[in-house]
């Protein structure tokens, strides 16, 4: 009996020792959101459907984390001394132009543009994310430069994103940056425009070095980058059907039999060639294909291609992402992610699995009977520019950050519920969201915009990116 008891005691001590000696990931700082700041790009800013505006800024991933952590979003009239999460609100329909909305036929831009509502706000914004910014940009651009873009109303010359974050003596810093180091290259179909692996790694390390030195007690979290970003909805499979002017699909008649041998002008040549098998096109190319671009001259007399004005004219190299280019993008982003994980580890910063999130987005996600996909316009995850997320998509993005924070810091921040985006959700989440576009407004816009062209994410992105 005594022997058994002492054995039990020894075993218990041994188990305890084992438990204590298991190395735990010691994240720096703590999950204290008293002074919460965010460093990021268009995703962090809440840029949606080609526009940054107050309707969606409050659903940026940092704003959603702030709300879930118990903070309130500052109203445009807030004073600098108010204890709230300040975001650089811009009036509807937004900057650099109105948002892209669906009118029942196609995606059109809301006319007009918005204006900054808080340019005189008396302290740096908590959400410092600026659309278009790369890892390099968050360290260098202060918001006065000609290339500052939306940094003008967001950074206001008060310093770089990193400087302004440190200046606020933050208790917690959430960071997601790096998307623009490849997105510009993807949207131009040109892997040579990727930020180099070495430059990315150096910039990421210097960003975390600076933040750790400037806010040594702050909790921090970063995130990986989506490696599926050469996929829908930014890009599309080459269509096997073509659309009429009302976007109704028209089946190819014989002898085409459902597939078209698209052609384009490869880079560095003037001789058109067949698009390599396995290529994808940028979403922005679809509207040109609908006008006949990329359809070879041999089909010029074959209906319905004969009816299209540009049949026989090649697509450009920038519109085509060949399998070789897809591989180059995948490798580039994979290198960035390795750099992010290594840098985060070296700085004791947890990493949110945004790559994994986008992998799931690629196949669709389903929660309690609500299914969301990456389908353009109707899928619910990506906004009408094909690049940025919807409010719902940003909530799921924020949840990955919350999960990483809770796992690393033992905190219990509840994730954001997509039920807040149910239009008739009842008591739990208020009485439902406001309708962004009334049917009357949609129909009015249809008459304004006769051209039925889908979003052009590449152009939008470049506009934001400068």
């Amino acid at each position: 009996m005594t022997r058994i008891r002492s054995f039990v005691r020894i075993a218990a001590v041994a188990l305890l020792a084992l438990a204590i000696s298991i190395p735990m990931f010691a994240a720096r700082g703590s999950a204290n959101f008293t002074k919460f700041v965010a460093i990021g790009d268009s995703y962090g800013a809440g840029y949606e459907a080609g526009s940054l505006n107050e309707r969606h800024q409050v659903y940026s991933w940092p704003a959603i984390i702030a709300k879930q952590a118990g903070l309130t979003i500052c109203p445009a009239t807030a004073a600098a001394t108010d204890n709230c999460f300040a975001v650089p609100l811009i009036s509807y329909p937004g900057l650099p132009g109105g948002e892209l909305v669906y009118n029942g036929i196609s995606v059109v831009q809301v006319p007009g543009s918005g204006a900054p509502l808080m340019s005189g706000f008396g302290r740096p914004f908590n959400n410092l994310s600026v659309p278009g910014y790369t890892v390099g940009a968050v360290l260098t651009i202060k918001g006065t430069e000609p290339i500052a873009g939306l940094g003008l109303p967001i950074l206001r010359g008060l310093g770089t994103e990193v400087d302004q974050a440190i200046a606020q003596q933050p208790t917690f810093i959430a960071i997601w940056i790096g998307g623009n180091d490849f997105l510009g290259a993807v949207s131009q179909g040109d892997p040579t425009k990727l930020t180099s692996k070495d430059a990315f790694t150096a910039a990421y390390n210097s960003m975390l070095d600076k933040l750790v030195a400037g806010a040594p007690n702050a909790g921090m979290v970063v995130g990986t980058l989506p490696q599926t970003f050469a996929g829908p909805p930014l890009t599309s499979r080459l269509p096997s059907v073509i659309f009429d002017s009302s976007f109704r699909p028209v089946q190819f008649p014989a002898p085409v039999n459902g597939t078209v041998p698209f052609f384009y002008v490869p880079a560095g040549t003037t001789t058109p060639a067949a698009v390599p098998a396995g290529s994808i096109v940028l979403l922005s190319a679809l509207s040109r294909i609908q006008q006949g671009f990329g359809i070879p001259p041999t089909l010029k007399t074959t209906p319905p291609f004969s009816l299209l004005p540009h049949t026989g004219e090649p697509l450009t190299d920038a519109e085509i992402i060949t399998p070789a280019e897809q591989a180059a993008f995948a490798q580039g982003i994979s290198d960035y992610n390795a750099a992010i994980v290594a840098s985060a580890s070296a700085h004791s910063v947890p990493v949110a699995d945004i790559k994994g999130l986008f992998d799931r987005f690629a196949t669709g996600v389903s929660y309690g009977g609500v299914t969301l996909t990456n389908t353009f316009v109707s899928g619910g995850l990506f906004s009408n520019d094909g690049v940025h997320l919807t409010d719902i998509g940003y909530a799921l993005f924020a949840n990955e950050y919350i999960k990483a924070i809770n796992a690393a810091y033992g905190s219990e921040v509840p994730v954001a519920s997509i039920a807040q985006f149910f239009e008739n959700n009842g008591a739990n989440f208020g009485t439902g969201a406001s309708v962004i576009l009334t049917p009357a407004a949609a129909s009015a816009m249809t008459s304004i915009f006769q051209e039925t062209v889908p979003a052009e994410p590449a152009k939008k992105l470049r506009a934001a990116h400068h």
Partner: protein
Amino acid sequence: MRPSSRLLLLISATLLIVSGASYGSGFSIFEQGAKATAMGGAFAATADDPSAIFYNVAGIAQQRKMAVMFGGTGINFSNQFTGDPNDPLTSGATGEYRAHTFIPPNAYFIMPVGSNLTFGLGVMTPFGLRTDWREPWVGRFVSRDANVKVVSVEPAVAWQTSDGRLALGFGAEYRRSHISLNRNNAAFNPFTGRIIDTANAYLTSDWDTNWGWNVGILYKMNPQWRVGASYRTDMTIDYEGSAHFTQIPTGIAPFDAVIKSQLPPDQGITTSVNFPATLIAGVATSAFGHNWDIEADVTHTTWSRFKSLDVNFNTTTALSFTRPQNWEDTYSYRLGANKKVTDDWDVRFGVVYDENPQPTQGVGPLLPDSDREGAAFGVGYRHGAWSIDATEFVLHFKTRSTNGISSDNFNGTYKTNANLISFNIGYRF
């Protein structure tokens, strides 16, 4: 009115008012008589009123007077769903059932013939389920309202030895059942960037039937000790029914047009449910004296037959679905006591522990089952040929969490309590 026509009236009334709610594990209902319920359902070795037709059919052999008994169990409950703070849909959400009082009814008639045989006829509701969520319910895209109704008619016969020590019984159960499922469909509304209810899907079956049987044995070892056992067969009911799809207009004409074009036509459906077999074994004694009668029972229910809920759509076959259930066999443990206080009055106590058959993955709005413990108190009153039994039964369901592994990606915690009041009136001719 002759007794038999009175009985027919009673049976038809019972068939009309039947309404299900799940109070045994899974979707079984073990409360088919007020006295048995007061004893925690430990009744297989006692079986001394006409509800023996349900608990142990052999027990009607020892009842040597023609008798009729009918009643029901009024069931009220409170429940609370709390969303999982780590679930991207349910975080921060709550929910509860719509308030209902369910009254699964029962009615029994027994008629001894000679000195050894007793014939019987019972009507009861051995299964049933209702999970009707109060709107607006965040889980409405999984299930708004599920309703399983079951009513059984059971002719029975039992025989006992002349010394009354051994009894054997047999019953043939004719089971009728009806199922309905109701949920909403959601879609992303590209005009508003929000998620909206676009349609309601209501699946309802006909009343479909099958036959099963049950047997029982009751053995009195000596004047103080007795044992009983009964077995009720499993059964599969194949259902035919229809699916109704109703569009929920959003008020945005082009969107509604798309939804309308995608709405499946109303159409026939088929499904089937594998009901479990139940084996009950009990031992009872009066050895404690002072007019106490104590019984302990164990029941075994073969819920592992309920592997999945499959619904086949006749026209739009792509809608056909299989919801894996993968239930497990369960045991329940029941202990009851009956004290004859006076010639007219009995008091009764019972406790029960009932395991649930449902794996964590399957816990959801359709049926959030959990282990439950119950305590009952009842009284019986006899006056001449009349008897009245009344029971208060409190059932506490253990808090059940999906632990983040809900197969519907709908995680949360379900808390349920039920209050049951059983009432029976009997008459011995």
